[in-house]
């Protein structure tokens, strides 16, 4: 079963070698359904297309009978983000738009304070260094 699925996924990917180019040309969109916790990415899904599970990852490909990809869907997106934080970070503003709007300024403030402190720290170190050098002169 697993081998069959892998073969199918390989076949799909062979048909869609230009996927990256197509995604920018066709101006794919990202939409998030909060109630269903499902994130969909892609162009308009045409009539006759269906989903194909990408193993047990939670990602589904929207393909037609000729294996052409029209987009993706992420099932249980919130849990998917926890399982795959490296991908999840890019999905965060879409899944949590309000939280992101609030947290972004806080994070930037924290970073600016931290950066400011480190600057002060480096100034302090430099002062110590100069003071130390001066005492030996």
């Amino acid at each position: 079963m697993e081998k069959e699925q892998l073969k199918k996924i390989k076949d799909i990917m062979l048909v869609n070698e230009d996927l990256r180019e197509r995604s920018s040309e066709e101006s794919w969109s990202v939409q998030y359904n909060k109630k269903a916790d499902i994130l969909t990415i892609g162009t308009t899904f045409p009539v006759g297309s269906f989903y194909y599970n990408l193993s047990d990852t939670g990602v589904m490909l929207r393909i037609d009978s000729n294996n052409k990809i029209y987009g993706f869907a992420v099932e249980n997106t919130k849990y998917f983000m926890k399982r795959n934080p490296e991908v999840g970070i890019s999905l965060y503003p879409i899944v949590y738009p309000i939280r992101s709007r609030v947290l972004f300024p806080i994070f930037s403030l924290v970073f600016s304070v931290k950066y400011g402190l480190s600057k002060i720290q480096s100034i302090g170190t430099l002062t110590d260094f100069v003071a130390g050098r001066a005492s030996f002169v």
Partner: protein
Amino acid sequence: MTIPFQRIFCEFTEKTENLVVVLYAGVYEDIVNGKNHHQHKEIETHLDLVKKAIEDPDIVLQDSDYKNRRHYFVYFVGDEVYGEAYMKVVVEIPRFMSANVVTAYFLKNIKISEKPIWKKSN
């Protein structure tokens, strides 16, 4: 104008868990017209399959993440537009309300990791 809590259908899952599952007009509109996600036009033409998946499913799986969600599957042989696939209906069972359809779509293959809670005997 559709009333969001108007019922499109109300099915009883007597073969599996004794639940009353409702598909609300608001959810149906979201699925078909893609208000919050991409359109799943297959539901408009195959609403009878959504009903059948709940009433007489081939397999029912427990959602691996949400404890209060079930996935109802019914096999579809295909027609002139869609090839053979499963109609997957995601049903949520809230604590104080009747179970309701969250989303539905055609899916070619079933996840191996999800635990079956009911299977049709041949």
